[in-house]
């Protein structure tokens, strides 16, 4: 899938093919929104962040369209962090938007357990696991996105996975 995204964006940047951009958007928007939700944004701010992330993405993507998905998520994460900082700086805004979404499904479901365990991890570890095992970025792409060496990312991913297993062992029902 990252190769498809890359091809689409290269076509968009080279030939100005709007259809390619639309296809990229349709392939990424839904997942990016859910990613922002998993990282603690409330539904409405998640739409705003999504829109802003894509707008900024359009401005910069044609400079180097080699890793479009990593770039999009990098922009979205930075915007989300900025939003958190703004919220912390202004006392009127409630900080409840970072609370995880209420879960309707049964806790006995393994998927649900993993989701809850993921949300209980520190943000950095959670982010690594989402980017690597859900979004499907390579270690190299994540390293470029987070500006860290690839080996460090590899170790941190393994560490985050081990931490998740450890939490499962300690409290599988969360």
């Amino acid at each position, binding site marked *: 899938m990252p190769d498809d995204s890359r091809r689409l964006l290269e076509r968009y940047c080279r030939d100005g093919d709007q259809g390619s951009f639309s296809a990229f*958007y349709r392939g990424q928007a839904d997942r990016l*929104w859910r990613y922002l939700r998993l990282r603690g944004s409330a539904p409405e701010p998640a739409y705003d962040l999504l829109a802003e992330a894509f707008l900024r993405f359009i401005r910069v993507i044609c400079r180097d369209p080699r890793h479009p998905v990593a770039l999009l998520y990098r922009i979205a994460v930075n915007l989300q962090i900025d939003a958190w900082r703004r919220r912390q700086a202004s006392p009127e805004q409630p900080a409840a938007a970072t609370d995880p*979404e209420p879960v309707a499904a049964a806790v006995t479901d*393994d998927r649900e357990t993993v989701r809850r365990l993921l949300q209980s991890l520190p943000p950095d570890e959670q982010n690594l696991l989402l980017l690597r095992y*859900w979004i499907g970025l390579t270690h190299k792409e994540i390293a470029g996105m987070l500006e860290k060496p690839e080996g460090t990312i590899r170790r941190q991913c393994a560490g985050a996975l081990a931490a998740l*297993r450890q939490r*499962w062992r300690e409290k599988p029902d969360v």
Partner: protein
Amino acid sequence: MSERAIPDAERLTRLIFEACEYQPGPDMARLSRLEERLNRQAAGRQQRPVRRHRLWWLILLLAGGAAAAAWWGGLLSRGAEPRQMSQPQPPAATAPHREIRPKANPEPAGGKGEGNSHLIYRREDY
């Protein structure tokens, strides 16, 4: 359910994917409206490089024109100089040689001793 086995790394990564993939998604109508807006932006963005391209062509054309004008100007001013200055000189090495070597042996009138010798010229030893 606390008796559940701890999943191995492979199963855990699959569970991470499924847990995220099957969570509630966004309102697709909102995403479509956003797509329309973004498409307009994306179309606007795409036109700029083309315009910039045209500008570069114009600059290139002007620079090329200026260079050609300068070259022609230089050529014309050189053409206005006196003609003989630009004419090629005859090769200097052959002309004196021809002058030194006489076609026939000049016989000095009445001079017998030197006149028998074939020696035309001898370098003086100092």
